[in-house]
């Protein structure tokens, strides 16, 4: 899986350079997020600009990261979520669970 991590203003910004997140690569995404959080990187932004397809296991991997970050008083926000991918979050009401921003800048500025 093609993942790129950048540290920006204390945030761990994870760029997912895959067109598709499904049961074939979601396990890798989940494990990667768990490792980040174990290392204490608990302010996470996942950039999904290139992702045009996500299945239930992909949503599950992101939810797992979100839950684990929260347990350690951190958080996991999503940015640049494409239209069709966003509609999967809406169908499952997960758009009420994740903080979703237009892009990385907005996510970093909207921190409370």
């Amino acid at each position, binding site marked *: 899986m093609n993942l790129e991590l950048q540290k920006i203003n204390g945030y761990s910004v994870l760029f997912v350079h895959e067109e598709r997140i499904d049961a074939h690569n979601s396990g890798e995404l989940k494990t990667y997020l768990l490792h980040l959080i174990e290392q204490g990187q608990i302010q996470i932004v996942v950039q999904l600009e290139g992702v045009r397809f996500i299945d239930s*296991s992909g949503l599950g*991997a992101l939810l797992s990261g979100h839950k684990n970050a929260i347990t350690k008083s951190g958080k996991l926000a999503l940015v640049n979520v494409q239209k069709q991918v966003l509609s999967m979050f809406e*169908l499952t009401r997960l758009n009420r669970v994740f903080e979703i921003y237009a892009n990385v800048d907005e996510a970093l500025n909207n921190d409370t």
Partner: protein
Amino acid sequence: MGAEIIQVDVIIPTQTKYLELIGQLGEQIVQKIDTFAADKDTLAYHLNLVLTEATANAIKHAHHNNPEDTVKIAIHIQDDAINIKVYDHGPGFDLQAVLSPDFDQPKEHGMGLFFIRTLMDSVAYIRTEDGNVLEIIKYLRPTGAKPTCS
């Protein structure tokens, strides 16, 4: 449109790397057919998702990722309906007993069949001695105008 008959039958090894192939196939079929769907891109996405979820279930739950096994998927378009069948040779399960996810307590798993039921028009799981089949139907008609029985 009534004459538009497409049948695709695919057998793949039970490996998740083939999910993309199956999903894309569904997506591309929708892009080629004439449908009344207001938004073809959305229907194409939904078919990609539904095929991915149903095939992933056959791989994960029925065959436990045993790479020697195979899964059969049939996509047939006829009489203004898309008919999908995903066959498995596992122990089977009770589709009626699978509930919708609890949206107030989101979980990592259990969203696959919810997507299939929500996005398609009819879903059934039939167990036979020869194996099981998840049968999914999506009508290619304007919203609200389901076909009358013929």
